[in-house]
């Protein structure tokens, strides 16, 4: 299997930019690598992480910047996502407790799934705050 060179993508803090970044990632993977390398799980996790940054860390900001790097080696993705938004509440990662779904129709949750999926699919999740930037790193086997 050919190795994949690290993928670096920069984006502004909007949902449309998140879509563009994920499509860019897909195209880069399709160009460089014919074998599936768990790109589906990488895309699911990155989508949740990036949307969370847009909705919370960068909410109301016009100068929001996000930079992500995905590096694949030894059957594992190492991902770093940085943003210049507000820090995580109490400088901690979201608990990611999955919402209850065994409920009556009108009580079903319409949100709160994002970080529970991140917690289920990623490992070695680490968060740091330094000089006005958030850094989130994690790994995905694939």
């Amino acid at each position: 299997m050919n190795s994949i060179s690290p993928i670096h993508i920069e984006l502004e803090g909007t949902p449309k930019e998140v879509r563009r970044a994920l499509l860019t990632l897909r195209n880069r993977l399709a160009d460089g690598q014919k074998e599936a390398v768990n790109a589906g799980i990488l895309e699911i996790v990155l989508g949740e992480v990036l949307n969370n940054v847009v909705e919370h860390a960068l909410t109301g900001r016009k100068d929001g910047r996000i930079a992500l790097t995905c590096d694949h080696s030894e059957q594992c993705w190492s991902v770093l996502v940085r943003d210049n938004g507000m820090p995580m509440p109490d400088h901690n990662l979201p608990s990611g407790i999955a919402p209850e779904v065994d409920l009556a129709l009108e009580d079903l949750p319409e949100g709160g799934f994002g970080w529970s999926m991140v917690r289920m699919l990623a490992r070695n999740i680490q968060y740091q705050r330094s000089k006005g930037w958030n850094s989130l790193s994690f790994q995905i086997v694939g």
Partner: protein
Amino acid sequence: MDLSSTVEGDTLVVTVNESRIDASVAIQFKDRMREETETASGRVVLNLSRVDFIDSSGLGAIVAAMKQLGASHRLDLSCLNENVDKVFRLTRMDTVFQIHQTLEDALAS
């Protein structure tokens, strides 16, 4: 958000003619679903055969669409690709919706 619908017997089939239901279109999806299903008389099947990515906001919009249909119109799903199916299973939403492998299965059930 490009949705289209056809009537098959007593079932309204709504097809998503786009490859992604994500945070950038979640609100439009919910609004378009309301428009497409206004005249539904019975069950609604959401055909996701052209969708290859869904995020938690898109999932929430599908749940919202089911809730706005109300208890009198069941919302079933058909033709989930591998990644879309994964999101439903991880969130246990596969236990909330009836999910059919093919549109034919959905119409026969």
